[in-house]
């Protein structure tokens, strides 16, 4: 809630205007029945047509004022709510960019996305509702009640009793209804996850002829959902009609008390009846709005979680921009993920000279990717230091650091837009020749030329229309275009066949002669030609040296070699 008011504060003037018009609108609505009663009591009973017309014109004028106010109010409310939503989204987006991967891991990317889309929409609905109904409903309600009481004080106690009953009913609805709807949501999630599971395992289901078992699962979750829904709807079936019954009772009682009324008061009676319906209308609105409010409070909490997330990495105060050459030094580095209790890297010490190539090999989960993530400061070492050209990466200005490093991640991520747009991520100002050059090195030029529009071919979201190998090669080309001082290839050739992989790697070595190249792989053939090889297991260095040195000295390396290539290591 605080979040919402913080944003409203920024637009307080428009908000105030909107409230003003809203009040005018409500007042106009409220005056109608009174004028009506005047027409009846003074005009009709006194047989005064001119009076009827006079009041009628006033009534019409007020209706116009009401309409005008409503239009203005709508204009302000729409503008404010949409603008606030825009601002929240935009602030969120900027905030996410200041977060480090540790924060993002914690919040989960999928959850950040829903917060930026669904939750913001929820808040926007609330603000919009706040500015059009939420304030109007109480004004109308209170106004109607006050008018009834002022004009016919006798009716005050009945109104009070009815209001108390209605409030109790609304509260009852909330108390019994909400938990039921919570259950519905849970059951819906259950059905969703059953479907998701089925869809992603459809091959297995079919291969094992397990359709019956799947159906049984579905029957169960679908039935549970139907039951939960029925129960929730039945709570409403009890309360909603009870609320209108109560108000209707109020009308009867009003008529009952008024039966002894003199005939001059008949207009007032009509107005009272009319006001009662306005009260009912207001009350229904309020109970609806409570519903929206509860949901948007939950949403604004979730949004606030992002805003309150403190960036896990501190920006160095006197960060320096240096001219990076590419010598990388790990000095007794250990690293532990925030959620984990064990170290992912322990006491890693090694150095890569600028312009040389290092291969990193080890089983999955051994810490290879974690290690290279420390170089562009995606994560910070828990202890020890990572240095580039003998400067601690934590003190290098972030852009300067990341501009010098090109990383091709394991999972190639492309963005919607043309192939060229995607490659230009590496260098905004690259010429067509340069783009073509790197595409050729990455062995993807021929593929690009075979597509309908060549380099201008549009890719779907995340490059959905490409195969794994094509995506990997494009993301290599993108990285090369950056002309990095440090090039990190994180197992990014796994979807290429051995021959293409070899051509690509040779091309890279040729292209990035001066750059420090780090190649992570599980395939020994990919790393064995490197100047040196780092063999990692369980977050510890098992060996560091050339291929032949490691074959002699490192048991882990030898095992990997035997398992992949077979035979005696010295036999070939």
């Amino acid at each position, binding site marked *: 809630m605080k979040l919402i008011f913080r944003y409203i504060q920024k637009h307080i003037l428009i908000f105030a205007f909107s409230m003003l018009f809203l009040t005018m609108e409500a007042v106009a609505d409220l005056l109608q029945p009174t004028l009506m009663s005047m*027409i*009846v009591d003074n005009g*009709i009973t006194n047989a005064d047509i001119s009076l*009827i*017309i006079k009041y*009628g014109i006033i009534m*019409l004028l007020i*209706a116009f004022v*009401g309409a005008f106010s*409503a*239009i203005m109010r*709508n204009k302000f409310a729409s503008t404010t709510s*949409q*603008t606030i939503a*825009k601002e929240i*989204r*935009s602030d969120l987006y900027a905030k996410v960019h200041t977060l480090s991967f540790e924060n993002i891991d914690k919040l989960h990317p999928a959850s950040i*996305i829903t917060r930026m889309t669904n939750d913001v929409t929820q808040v926007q609905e609330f603000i*919009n509702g706040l500015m059009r109904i939420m304030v109007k409903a109480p004004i109308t309600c209170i106004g109607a009640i006050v008018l009834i009481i002022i004009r016919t004080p006798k009716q005050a106690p009945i109104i009070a009793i009815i209001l108390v009953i209605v409030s109790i009913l609304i509260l009852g609805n909330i108390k019994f209804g909400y938990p039921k*709807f919570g259950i*519905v949501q849970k059951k819906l999630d259950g059905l969703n996850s059953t479907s998701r599971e089925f869809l*992603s395992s459809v*091959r*297995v289901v*079919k*291969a*094992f002829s*397990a359709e019956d078992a799947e159906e049984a699962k579905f029957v169960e979750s679908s039935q549970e*959902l139907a039951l939960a*829904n*029925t129960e929730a709807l*039945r709570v*409403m*079936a*009890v309360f*909603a009609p*009870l609320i*209108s019954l109560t108000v*209707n009772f109020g009308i009867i009682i009003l*008529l009952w008390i008024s*039966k002894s*009324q003199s*005939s001059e008061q008949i207009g007032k009676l009509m107005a009272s*009846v009319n006001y009662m*319906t306005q009260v009912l209308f207001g009350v229904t609105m309020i109970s*609806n709005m409570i*519903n929206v409010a509860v949901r948007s409070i939950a949403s604004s909490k979730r949004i606030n979680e992002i805003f309150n997330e403190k960036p896990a990495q501190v920006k160095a105060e006197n960060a320096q921009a240096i001219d990076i050459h590419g010598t990388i030094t790990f000095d007794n580095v250990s690293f532990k993920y925030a959620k984990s209790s064990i170290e992912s890297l322990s006491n890693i010490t090694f150095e890569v000279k600028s312009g040389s190539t290092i291969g990193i090999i080890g089983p*999955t989960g051994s810490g290879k990717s974690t290690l290279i993530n420390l170089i562009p400061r995606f994560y910070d070492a828990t202890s020890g230091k990572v240095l580039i050209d003998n400067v601690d990466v934590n003190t290098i200005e972030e852009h300067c650091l*990341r501009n010098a490093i*090109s990383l091709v*991640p394991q999972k190639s*991520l492309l963005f919607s837009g043309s192939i060229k747009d995607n490659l230009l*991520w590496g260098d905004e100002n690259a010429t067509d020749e340069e783009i073509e050059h790197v595409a050729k090195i990455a062995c993807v030029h021929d593929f690009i030329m075979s597509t309908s529009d060549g380099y201008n071919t549009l890719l779907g979201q*995340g490059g959905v229309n490409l195969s*794994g190998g094509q995506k990997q090669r494009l993301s290599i080309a993108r990285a090369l275009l950056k002309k990095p001082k440090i090039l990190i290839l994180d197992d990014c050739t796994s979807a290429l066949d051995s021959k293409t992989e070899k051509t690509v790697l040779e091309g890279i070595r040729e292209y990035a002669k001066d750059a420090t190249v780090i190649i992570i792989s*599980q395939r020994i*053939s990919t790393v064995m030609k490197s100047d040196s090889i780092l063999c990692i297991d369980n977050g510890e260095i098992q060996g560091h040296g050339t291929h032949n040195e490691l074959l002699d000295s490192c048991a882990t390396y030898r095992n990997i070699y035997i*398992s*992949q*290539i077979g035979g005696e290591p010295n036999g070939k």
Partner: protein
Amino acid sequence: MANNYSTPPSNMNGIQRPGRGMVVVKPKNLKGTLIRLWKTTAGHRKGLGWILLLSILASATAILSPFLSGKAITLINNGDPVNIVLLSLLIIYISEWLNKTLQQFIMAKTCQNIIHHIRMGLIQKTLKLPLSFFDKHQHGELMSRLTNDIDNISTTISNSLSLLFTYFFTIIGIFIMMVSLNPLLTLVSIVGIVAIFILTKFITSRTKKLFKERQVNLGALNGHIEEGISGITVVKAFSREEKMQQEFEEKNDKLCKTSIDALIYSGYLMPLTNVINNICFLLIAVFSGIMYLNNVFEDIGLITTFLLYIRQFNRPFVEIANIYNNFQTAVAGAERIFEIIDQDEEPADAKNAIKLENAKGDIEFKNVSFEYKKDYLILDDFSLKIKAGTQVAIVGPTGSGKTTIINLLTRFYDVTSGEITIDGHKLEEYTMKSLRETFGVVLQDSSLFASTVKDNIAYGHDNATFEEIVEAAELSGADSFINRLENKYDTLLEQGGLELSQGERQLITISRAVIAKAPIIILDEATSSVDTVTEQKIKRAMVNMCKGKTSFIIAHRLATIRDSDIILFIEKGKIIEQGSHDELIKLNGKYAQLYLTQTGAI
């Protein structure tokens, strides 16, 4: 008269429905779909008759209560005893309340039953669809059929149907009452309705475009968010934060602008309708006042009755347009569901289909060709004869057709031409179930389910004993890590196995294939995404499992398949080379080339 506002608040059930001005998706065949939907509900309609009856009663009370309120006011005005009228009003209100409660109560059950029934129909159908369907459709799309579209049918059709009924009867009833009370005043209110109708038409014809535009902009923005956040590693790695923010702001601004326009424009409707209503109200007051004074009628309560009626009369007209739009969107959703139901199922078993039991494992591909799309040959005149007990390895570049061979053998897809036989009979001659049970399959993506380790191993074999499960796990080498889990075989894999390593998951899927005791084993890239140490373990499990059985192994890494009896090298849907490892090395062709590149010799 309180009926005006006592329809159940529309967003109380926690599901947002498209409101005024939302984009309406028009169904292609409204009538046909409705009839079909009606037929689908056969056997679950108990209660629908009650709902119809109750909505007629609801409209009756809606018609009578203003009449009685007016009557009461007239009587009070004349100083006559009002008790009887008030009593009947009381009865009307109470019966209205009973009616509503009952109607909603019945509806809650009936509708949910129908929904469950439709959903299960869709699911049963989905389970029978061939794999090609799932390969062609996005999962998200199918999910939204199962949940969103069905929900839409449930909330919208059930609500709007009963409202439409009620409004329909209300409008007719009130119209009759008004005409019988005073035709002239009725004419005035009809003029008002026509005016409102024209106004609504005028405004919605303009807002429709704006809302559509907003939808497009919203899609673009959400797409950008999804891409930007899930690809944040790359965004940061390439220092693209500012650029992304800039693009985001553009899309965000655009959305904001169109939203404001759409909302402002559509916001004209309600106030202007109100003005028209008020003018109507006034005209009736003036006319009826004049009439009363001229003694056209003596019943002052008539004015009240009329004023109450006109409100109730106008309201449904505005509402019906909205309800109809929602209704159309829901029917369009139903159409999408029927689209799935109309898909071709997997071919049914032939009439005299035989059960394939204890297959020996002789397999032959005779001139098999296959295309996923027309003129897009994946397998081209492919012939192969395999004796029972042979271990066949298939290698070749991506897209060469390796997995297709397996897909045809298991009848995930059917051949375009040619035939495949097992033990001398064509695949089509066997029942689908017995055929698939003949294969023990391990796939590249190890799909585990969110249940216990035990259940996952016994997947598809519900009657497997615990001993059999443990035996299978031991054979595949999975038992050592399972025993280290907190609850061993009863450990619940809440995240569908994500809590295990890739290799551990794969070992469970291998155990799953072991327990099937299938005569023919298929391993499709079972080791390509695990590290070499795990690969060794899996390889050992494979050797155990494949002993004496016909088996197919597809692998990227040649080390995995060196010991196979026959190695097939496939390229562009044809067998290029075929033989044992040593033979192929001697041949010094493509396989030898590949092997040497992988071992780093060249």
